[in-house]
């Protein structure tokens, strides 16, 4: 469930002597290593001025410096806290709204059209309004991240809970389930595959929105803020370090989400 996979025959041709577990790792590393070599080559050949393209070694040095002597722990911590809090708030509301839309025809009739209209507005179009209402500080940032996590959870939960088969509703009737029993034992787990997809998408959106909020709203500790700082001070190495960290943390999120998904939906396979 790690996003992409290659069929075995193709992989066999690539490295017949490698163990099957190692093969995808090696294959996946080819391009990053190639990029690194190309980057170093550009620097060594002096094809670009070093203030525009610092060497890989410089970037590693900057990373070390930022963590040991700088504020990177605080920056990474602040960004992480923003994304997780925003994700939690947005997806909690999204889950409730999505279940209401999917399980109640009245709620769907009432809120469905409004929600579809809201979906047409690009996420970043909310930034000016939210910053007016909630300010450019922590509250405004959190509001934006929450809002970005909200929509994908709503859409997927709505669709999935609406698609609960009639046969299971009949079963619930035969077992004389009340509304709560139905929600807890049938609707929620039945919609879980869709909900998990929504949550994973929401996590990605929230991460993007976190960086967006840090870039466009008030300066505060955070990786987005450091990107701004890098541009203002013309420190390309700082910007590259921040970008690498954004990518790395995003990968960690997506791995954790994939792991959570396979545990939550463990009843599906085997």
């Amino acid at each position, binding site marked *: 469930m790690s996003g992409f996979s290659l069929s075995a025959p193709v992989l066999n041709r690539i490295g017949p002597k490698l163990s099957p577990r190692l093969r995808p790792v090696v294959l996946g590393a080819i391009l990053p290593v190639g990029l690194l070599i190309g980057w170093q080559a550009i620097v060594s050949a002096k094809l670009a001025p070093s203030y525009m393209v610092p060497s890989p070694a410089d970037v590693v040095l900057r990373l070390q410096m930022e963590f040991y002597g700088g504020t990177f722990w605080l920056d990474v911590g602040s960004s992480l806290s923003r994304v997780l809090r925003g994700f939690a708030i947005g997806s909690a509301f999204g889950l409730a709204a999505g279940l209401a839309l999917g399980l109640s025809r009245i709620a769907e009739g009432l809120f469905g059209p409004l929600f579809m209209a809201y979906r047409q507005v690009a996420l970043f179009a909310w930034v000016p309004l939210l910053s007016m209402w909630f300010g450019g500080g922590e509250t405004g940032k959190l509001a934006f991240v929450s809002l970005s996590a909200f929509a994908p959870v709503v859409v997927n939960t709505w669709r999935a809970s609406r698609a609960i088969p009639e*046969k299971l509703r009949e079963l619930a009737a*035969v077992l004389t389930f009340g509304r709560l*029993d139905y929600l807890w034992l049938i609707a929620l787990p039945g919609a879980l595959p869709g909900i998990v997809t929504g949550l994973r998408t929401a996590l990605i959106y929230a991460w993007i929105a976190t960086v967006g909020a840090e870039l466009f709203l008030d300066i505060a500790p955070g990786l987005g803020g450091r990107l701004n700082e890098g541009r203002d001070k013309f420190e390309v190495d700082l910007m590259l370090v921040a970008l690498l960290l954004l990518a790395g943390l995003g990968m960690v999120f997506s791995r954790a989400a994939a792991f959570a998904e396979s545990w939550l939906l463990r*009843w599906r396979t085997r």
Partner: protein
Amino acid sequence: MNLDIRAFEFGQAAVSRDPVLEIDHVSKRFHVAGRVVQALADISLAVEDGAFVAIVGASGCGKSTLLRLILGLDTDYEGEIRLDGQRVRRPGLDRGMVFQDHRLLPWLTVEGNVAVALRRSRLSSAEKKRLVAEHLELVGLSGFARAWPAQLSGGMSQRVAIARALVNRPRFLLLDEPLGALDALTRLRLQDELARIVRHERSTAILVTHDVDEAVFLADRVVVLRPNPGRIARVVDVTLGARRDRSDPAFVLLRDEVLDLLGVRDRISGPQPSIRGTQQNE
């Protein structure tokens, strides 16, 4: 067992036991694409406590519809269905149901799937646990309590569904072609088990099936439905003992009689001579 419909219609007490399930002049219409389809026409049937009644008929004769009405899933019909004299208004835990598809919840383990049927019961959790274990034992799946439905075969899944239907100790066990989706071998084996299980639980069982062998093998009475509109052609009493042999001449005769009523007799091998032959061999 010898209470027939006419006796019921005239309100005579033909047997000492009162019927626990009464289907009283039930008719049911559906509106399909602007047309009215008569699914059931004037069905009357009385079932006494502990009886095993099979309802057979070609597909479309309304036999599954009748079960839905007994369950209380649909109350929009003419006539009346009574359980212990009370009109059926909604589903209740006094009726356990096994569907043709096992309809297990894939996100619950085997024991979880059986336990959901006890969700609305007032028993203590220790008592519920004991009942679940006991019924898994009854269907021979004690070793699979923690398995997921996705790991089970079709026959095993249907056993879990049977355990789920029985765990409440329902007075009525309703079976809607419970073995219809299984392969022939598994079906035979589960028919034996079903006979044993129902005898053990002493429920009143209503089995809907299109398998005449299954009906004659399991039931005390076979209700033969004719389609368009669904109506009772005849009620055949099965006067065989508790242990039934599918190749016993008496069994074959009864089966042929039911097949006759369904209008599919020609496909069965010649009637009397072959039976005589078997008897002579014994």
